[in-house]
């Protein structure tokens, strides 16, 4: 990063940091009345740039133009979220800001930290619960051409590569029992519980779920569309288990599995269960 850019970054307080979006819980909704095939809603996590404008907006936009001049197409095809948390701005000003950004080919897909009264139906939707990822390096002056080309061509790959190494944080180990009413939510990968999962508790994982104790609550594995995820538990008393949106309630489970060490996996559109060793 060149000194010049750093100066801009400090003076104009233009912060650019990617965040994860929409780690929604996966749910399966069945429309019973007319359609035989169930609709499946999938949660997916994307990386977006978060732009935090600073007052006065004219100066901030000038800084943005400066950045765009140095690297044409920097914002092209990148999802951008506008972070207006703590910004003293009214509805008209916010709308103008979104328009101004649109003119600069920066398409705002969502607005974070805005009061509901600031957002109209014609505005980008409100977003919340964004989790910070590593900061995004904007292209520095002098290396514009290569950088721009590299980022222009394979847009999707670049966005993923710029984010945190998702695979490296692919497991979560919980050493306490998961109590009723608690929810362990980890879309990044596998969850291992050393203890029991109580009735009324839930574990939601993007990968597999391992419970070294009694599974009494709910376990939802592979929620980010990972059909190869599995659920393992030392003692099965579960209320519900799901993999990639296909679920099995306690009523549908084989009665002889109760109280046994069990694994669950997805085969086609059906959950399969087997007693472990």
């Amino acid at each position: 990063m060149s000194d010049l850019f750093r100066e801009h970054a400090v003076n104009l307080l233009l912060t650019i940091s990617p965040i994860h979006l929409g780690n929604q819980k996966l749910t399966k909704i069945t429309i019973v009345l007319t359609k035989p095939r169930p609709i499946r809603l999938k949660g997916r996590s994307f990386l977006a740039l978060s732009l935090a404008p600073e007052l006065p907006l004219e100066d901030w936009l000038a800084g943005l133009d400066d950045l765009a001049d140095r690297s044409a197409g920097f914002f092209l095809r990148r999802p951008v979220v506008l972070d207006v948390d703590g910004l003293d701005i009214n509805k008209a000003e916010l709308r103008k800001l979104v328009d101004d950004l649109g003119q600069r080919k920066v398409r705002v897909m969502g607005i974070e930290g805005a009061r509901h009264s600031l957002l109209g139906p014609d505005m980008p939707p409100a977003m919340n619960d964004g989790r910070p990822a590593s900061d995004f390096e904007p292209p520095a002056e002098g290396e514009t051409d290569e950088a721009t080309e590299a980022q222009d061509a394979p847009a999707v790959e670049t966005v993923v590569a710029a984010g945190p190494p998702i695979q490296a944080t692919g497991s979560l180990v919980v050493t306490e029992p998961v109590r009723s009413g608690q929810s362990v939510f980890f879309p990044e990968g596998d969850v291992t519980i050393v203890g029991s999962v109580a009735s009324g508790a839930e574990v939601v994982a993007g990968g597999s779920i391992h419970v070294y104790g009694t599974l009494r609550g709910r376990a939802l594995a592979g929620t980010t569309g990972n059909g190869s995820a599995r659920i393992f538990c030392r003692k099965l008393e579960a209320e519900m288990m799901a993999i990639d949106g296909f679920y099995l309630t306690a009523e549908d489970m084989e009665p002889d599995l109760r109280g046994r060490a069990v694994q669950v996996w997805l085969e086609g559109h059906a959950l399969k269960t087997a007693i472990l060793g």
Partner: protein
Amino acid sequence: MGKVIVVTSGKGGVGKTTSSAALGAALAQNGEKVVVVDFDVGLRNLDLVMGAERRVVYDLVNVIQGEAKLPQALIRDKRVETLYLLPASQTRDKDNLTPEGVEKVIAALKKAFDWVICDSPAGIERGATLAMRHADIAIVVTNPEVSSVRDSDRIIGLLDSKTLKAENGERMEKHLLLTRYDPARAERGDMLKVDDVLEILSIPLLGIIPESMDVLRASNLGSPVTLADEGSAPSRAYFDAVRRLKGEALPVTVPGERRSFFGKLFGRKAA
């Protein structure tokens, strides 16, 4: 500095107030200075169970709102002189409890007493969370049946996340008090087994209080059961629980198991 205990359960009617009074009285009968604080604003009962309902002038809400001084609101027990009660207000609601006010009252009580026992209301709302907030030790009161066990599990989760100790990264000391244990129903398999409850909740067992007419009789008399009849089965169970609370390693006996031979005999006859 005294220790703050919260007696909590999530579910109502499991015996929080009875246990708060009995444990408080048992500690005081051992010569410790004890105050039992009723947090059930709007539905107070502790004054009745402790036989002080006709002596309530000021209450917890009055103290918190600055309408009375703490010593004015404390009621000294007529039978045990080291036992005090801080009653709740019956006419206000739980919104009158403020976090700052509760903190001040608890801090003042800690200085003056060896044990501050907070009788939590049922539920997981304001009253219950404020009652547990400043606790050093939690006593989770549970009946051996599924709904009570699940609610207790929920409360244990809150004890590990919403209390001051948890927020400071410390571990809250938690004990299970299994109440209304009925040996006859346990014999028939109508109740959850002690081992099952312990396996689900996975916290140490402080004691098992048998279901008994003595408890009901004592409540109606306005006396903690440990004061009404020191020799009764529930009283002895509460006295044992207090010894364990003070750190004594006393094995827990499951009520009715000593009489297992007779139990089986009667069980067959009944069938």
